[in-house]
C-alpha cells in the first residue's frame, strides 16, 4: 500500500465569471520517506493540489472529482472529523508566507501547545515540553524565551522554523511544504531548505515540496511533477526530469535557468507568451499556444499521458509523434498510445 495516492484529482473554483478548473485531473503517489517535488508557474495548481489533499480549500473552491487515499483510506467525501484527525497529525503543511501564517494575538507557546495537545494525549506540561523540544529541533536559539513571544517579535526565518516545528510536532507521515522559502531572503532560504533536508533524514517523513524553483527541486526531491494549467505535464524520478525532459514545457523551464558553471556568455531563453487563462482553456494541450513545436493535433486534442521511459511519464503529442516515427510506440487494443517501447515499467506495473 502506498502512503498517499492521488488519482485524477479535480478541484474547481466556482467564481461569478465561471468555473475555474484549478486542478484538472492530477494523479501521483507517494511512498514513505520520499520527497516529491511539484513544480510549476503561478496558477498551475500546485498549491490547490496541496490544499485539496488536506481539504483546506477556501470558498468557492471544492473538490469535484477524483480520489485521495491516505494509507488506503479514501479522504475525498470522508466526514470532516476524520479529515481533522489527519490534518496536522498525519499530514502537516507549512505555507509560503511565514509572516502572516501565525495568529498574531497568541503566543508561540499557545499555538504550538494547541497543535500538540489536539492530536496527542499529552497534558499541558508535557505539551509544553514537547513544544520546547521541537523548537530546539528546528534550531531556534533561546527557545524558552521564544515560547513566550508573539509572531511579530520573530524574524521571517524564525517564524518559518516555528511553522516547521508546529507541523512536525505530532510526527506526521507527510509534510507538505507550500513554497516554504519563496517569501524569505536567499540566505534564510538556504538555511530553511537545509533544515528540512536534515529533518527529513532524521525523522523519515515524506515531503511534498511545492515550488517554482527548479533548483530547490533538484537538490531535495526524489520524484518530480511538472504542472501546467492544472494538469501534470510531465512526471517521473528527478534524474529523468532533469536530464531527459520530454515535455516541451519542462524543456522550456530548464532552458530558462542560468547555469553558473558555464563561462560562456549564454542567453537565457524565456518561455514566450503568458500563462493560460484558466477560465478560458484552449481545446487541446494547454501549453500549445506557447509551444514552439505545436502541431495541429496539439490545438485540437489533449494529449494522453504516456510512459516515455522507465519511471517517466509525459503528456505531449510530440512524444507520440516521435514514437510513431521511430516505430517504438506501443498502443492498446483501441489504438490509444500507452508507452514508448523501451520504457518498460517496473514490476507490478508501477507508475509514478
Amino acid at each position, binding site marked *: 500500500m502506498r502512503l498517499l495516492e492521488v488519482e485524477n484529482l479535480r478541484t474547481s473554483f466556482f467564481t461569478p465569471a465561471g468555473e475555474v478548473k484549478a486542478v484538472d485531473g492530477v494523479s501521483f503517489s507517494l511512498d514513505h520517506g520520499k520527497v516529491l517535488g511539484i513544480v510549476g508557474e503561478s496558477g498551475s495548481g500546485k498549491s490547490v493540489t496541496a490544499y485539496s489533499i*488536506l481539504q483546506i480549500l477556501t470558498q468557492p473552491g471544492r473538490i469535484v472529482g477524483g480520489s485521495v487515499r491516505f494509507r488506503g483510506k479514501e479522504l475525498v467525501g470522508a466526514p470532516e472529523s476524520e479529515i481533522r*484527525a489527519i490534518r496536522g497529525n498525519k499530514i502537516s503543511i507549512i505555507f509560503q508566507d511565514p509572516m502572516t501564517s501565525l495568529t498574531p494575538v497568541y503566543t508561540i507557546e499557545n499555538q504550538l501547545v494547541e497543535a500538540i495537545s489536539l492530536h496527542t494525549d499529552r497534558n499541558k506540561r508535557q505539551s509544553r515540553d514537547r513544544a520546547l523540544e521541537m523548537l530546539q529541533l528546528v534550531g531556534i536559539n533561546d527557545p524558552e524565551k521564544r515560547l513566550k513571544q508573539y509572531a511579530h517579535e520573530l524574524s521571517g526565518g524564525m517564524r518559518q522554523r516555528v511553522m516547521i516545528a508546529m507541523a512536525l510536532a505530532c510526527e506526521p507521515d507527510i509534510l507538505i511544504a507550500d513554497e516554504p522559502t519563496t517569501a524569505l531572503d536567499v540566505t534564510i532560504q538556504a538555511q530553511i531548505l537545509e533544515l528540512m533536508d536534515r529533518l527529513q533524514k532524521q525523522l523519515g517523513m515524506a515531503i511534498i515540496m511545492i515550488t517554482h524553483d527548479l533548483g530547490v527541486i533538484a537538490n531535495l526531491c526524489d520524484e518530480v511533477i511538472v504542472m501546467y494549467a492544472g494538469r501534470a505535464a510531465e512526471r517521473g524520478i528527478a534524474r529523468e526530469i532533469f536530464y531527459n525532459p520530454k515535455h516541451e514545457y519542462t524543456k522550456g523551464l530548464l532552458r530558462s535557468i542560468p547555469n553558473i558553471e558555464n563561462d560562456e556568455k549564454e542567453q537565457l531563453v524565456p518561455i514566450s507568451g503568458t500563462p493560460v487563462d484558466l477560465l478560458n482553456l484552449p481545446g487541446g494541450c494547454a501549453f500549445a499556444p506557447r509551444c514552439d513545436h505545436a502541431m495541429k493535433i496539439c490545438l485540437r486534442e489533449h494529449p494522453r499521458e504516456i510512459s516515455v521511459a522507465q519511471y517517466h511519464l509525459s503528456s505531449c503529442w510530440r512524444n507520440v509523434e516521435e514514437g510513431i516515427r521511430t516505430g517504438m510506440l506501443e498502443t492498446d487494443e483501441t489504438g490509444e498510445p500507452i508507452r514508448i517501447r523501451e520504457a518498460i515499467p517496473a514490476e507490478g506495473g508501477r507508475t509514478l
Partner: protein
Amino acid sequence: MSAKFTGYLLRRFGMALLTIFLVIVITFATMHAIPASPFSSEKAKSDATIAALEAKYGFDKPLPVQFLNYIKGIARFDFGLSTAWVGSTVFGLIRNGFSYSAIIGLCAAVLALLLGLVLGSVSALNRGGIIDQVIQVITIALVSMPSFVLATLFLLFFGLRLKWFPTLGTQPGGLFLPILSLALYPMAYTTRLQRSSMLDVLGQDFIRTARAKGLHWYKVVFKHALKCALIPIVTYAGPMMANILVGSMVVENIFSVPGLGRLFVNSMLRTDYMIIMGITIFLAILIVLMNFLCDILYKVIDPRIQLS
C-alpha cells in the same frame, strides 16, 4: 514592561487632566461670552434684585476670580449651584440625571455590542446566504434610520397601539423602549463592522494554518478569528459607550426620562450655564476615561500594539 506601563499610565493621566482643563477653559469662556444672563426673564427684575442674585452666585466678581473659584470647586466635586432650579446643586442634578441615563446607556451599549458581535459573526460565517442577506437588509435600515424616528415609532406602536410597554420612562418597565431605541443604531453599526472585520480575518493566512492544524471550525472561528476581529470593534465601542452613557436628548425627551440628556436640554432653555458647564465637563471626563479604557483593552487584545 511594568515600568514602561506605569510611565504610560502617568503620561496618559497628565494628558487627561490637560484635556479636561482645556474643556473647562473653553466652556467657561463660551458660557460667559453669550449675551443672555441666567437671571433674565420676561418679567423685568429690578436692578437691585439682579445685583443681589449675582452677588449670591458670585457672578459679580471679576471673571478671572470666578474662574479660579470654579476650578477650586471642581477639585472638590462642587460644580456650583443651579440658577434655574433654585436650591439644587449642579452635582446633585447631574447625579440624579445620570442615574437614569447610565442605566439606559449601559443596557443599550451591552445589548448593542452583544447582539452586534453575534449577528455580525453569524452574517460573516454565512456570507452570501439567506441569513446574511436578511441581516444586511435589517442593519442597513437601522443604520439609516435616525433614533428619533425609531423612538417615535416605538412609542406609537408598542406604547400606544399595542400597549405592551408604558410610554413614560419613570413608570415600571418604562425604560425598555428607550433602551431599545438607543441600542438599535449602535447594534446595527456593530453588526456591520463585525461582519466586515470577521470576513477580513477569515481570509487571512493564519486561519488556514489553524484549519491545517486539524482544529474544529468553532475553535478556528472563536479562538483564532474572533480575537483579531474584535480590534476594530474596540475602536468603535469606546466613544460609542461614552456617547450613549451621557444620555440621548431626543430619546429621553420622547419617553420623558428625567435623564442627563433631558437635563441638558432644559438647562439650555433656561440658560442655566452652571449646569451646561457641569454636564459638558462631566461628558469630557467620561470620554477621556472611555478612550483610556479602550487603549488598555487594545493592548490586552493585540500584543502588537505599543503603548506610548
